């Protein structure tokens, strides 16, 4: 039965934003945790760890997120592991985010002059202590603007979870289209809602960049 696209549909779409946000936060948390390990492996003194992390980043960055998503959703069920859409989506997005965050944070860690490592080492600090007390606190400043910038990509890419039936904003849009048959209006609304989520993040990223550039 085809019905009109009305205000109630807009409310449903707005309500679906919460799942987009939940998925974004979960992926950022998971991706951040793995990404931190990747970044630290990339600056470690032990070459095989660096290679392993570099290979991981290359592999993930060289693979479409959609494929990673399908691998988790369809692939794992072949091995008799029933995977729910939200689990597959969270895992795939976490892995995707970990590669990009890992690279952003590696760059931030490497932007701290080698002399800071030396100064810490010369005082008897070990690798983990140099990272914790000397390098990371300085790298965080550098990494905040690009990290927030990447969040925009992550929020937008959660829409791919619609393809495996996870009901977030984009999937809600598909469902609304199916019942109202007004794809143009519906997807314009969906796009506008994504924009409302992402625009403040973009502005925040720009503002942080300016702030940290001024201070130096």
């Amino acid at each position: 039965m085809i019905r009109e696209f009305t205000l109630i549909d807009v409310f449903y779409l707005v309500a679906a934003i919460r799942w987009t946000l939940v998925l974004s936060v979960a992926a950022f948390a998971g991706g951040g945790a793995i990404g931190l390990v990747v970044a630290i492996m990339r600056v470690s003194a032990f070459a095989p760890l660096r290679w392993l992390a570099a290979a991981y980043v290359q592999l993930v960055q060289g693979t479409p997120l959609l494929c990673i998503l399908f691998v988790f959703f369809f692939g794992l069920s072949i091995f008799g592991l029933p995977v729910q859409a939200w689990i597959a989506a969270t895992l795939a997005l976490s892995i995707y985010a970990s590669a990009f965050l890992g690279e952003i944070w590696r760059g931030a860690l490497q932007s701290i002059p080698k002399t800071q490592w030396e100064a810490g080492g010369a005082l008897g600090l070990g690798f983990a202590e140099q990272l914790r007390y000397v390098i990371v606190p300085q790298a965080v400043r550098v990494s905040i603007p690009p990290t927030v910038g990447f969040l925009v990509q992550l929020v937008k890419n959660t829409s791919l979870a619609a393809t495996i039936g996870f009901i977030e904003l984009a999937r809600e849009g598909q469902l609304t289209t199916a019942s109202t048959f007004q794809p143009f209006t519906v997807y314009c609304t969906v796009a506008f809602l994504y924009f409302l989520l992402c625009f403040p993040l973009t502005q925040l990223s720009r503002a942080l960049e300016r702030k940290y550039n001024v201070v130096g």
Partner: protein
Amino acid sequence: MSLVEIRDVTKRFGSLTVLDGVSLDIDEGEIIAIIGRSGSGKSTLLRCINGLEPVQGGTITVGGVRVNDAKTDLKKLRQQVGIVFQSYNLFPHLSVARNITLAPTVVKNIAPAEARRIALDVLHRVGLEDKIDAYPQQLSGGQQQRVAIARSLAMQPKMMLFDEITSALDPELTGEVLKVIEDMARSGMTMALVTHEMAFARRIGTRVIFMHQGKIREQGPAAEILARPKTPELETFLNAVLH
């Protein structure tokens, strides 16, 4: 046994030989001034002593412990030997107090209150107690370098290494840093310093080492070496820096 024993040390950066069979003993209480042209290997020699640079041949021992040995705990060694760099290398995100107390609290597990007392003490020695809560970028170059010296002293090392620590400073600021070092010399601290300040080397150095092309070309008591160079290389060098 000398505090530092360097035996036939060779250091290469790729195909470039920076240290070519260097041997040197440093006794407790000695103040060694290392002079020579840029690229003669003097800074590298200093950095090898606390293991900041790996060496390709020979041995270095400090207090009987081999530096260039995989089994050596470099963390322990570096608590014995402090180093101060040309570019200060203070931690810009930390206050002067925290710059100084970081290593004592983290590496030696000294309680924060006690560490702050140590910080005040070492800052007093470099004349900067009133800057304890300042941040590095609020200080002049000379003050930053004095904080860097204080930071090293807070670990109570047996020996201090100074790597051209006044080279990045304006001439009017070098005096305050050199004075700090003279005070330390008087207190009996063992020191090795790479320097371009010949008058200073003569005044406080118990021994002067002249390095040339990765080798120790000449060495001896400061006054004698600087007044009567035996090799043409040292003579040329002294003429170039003194005039």
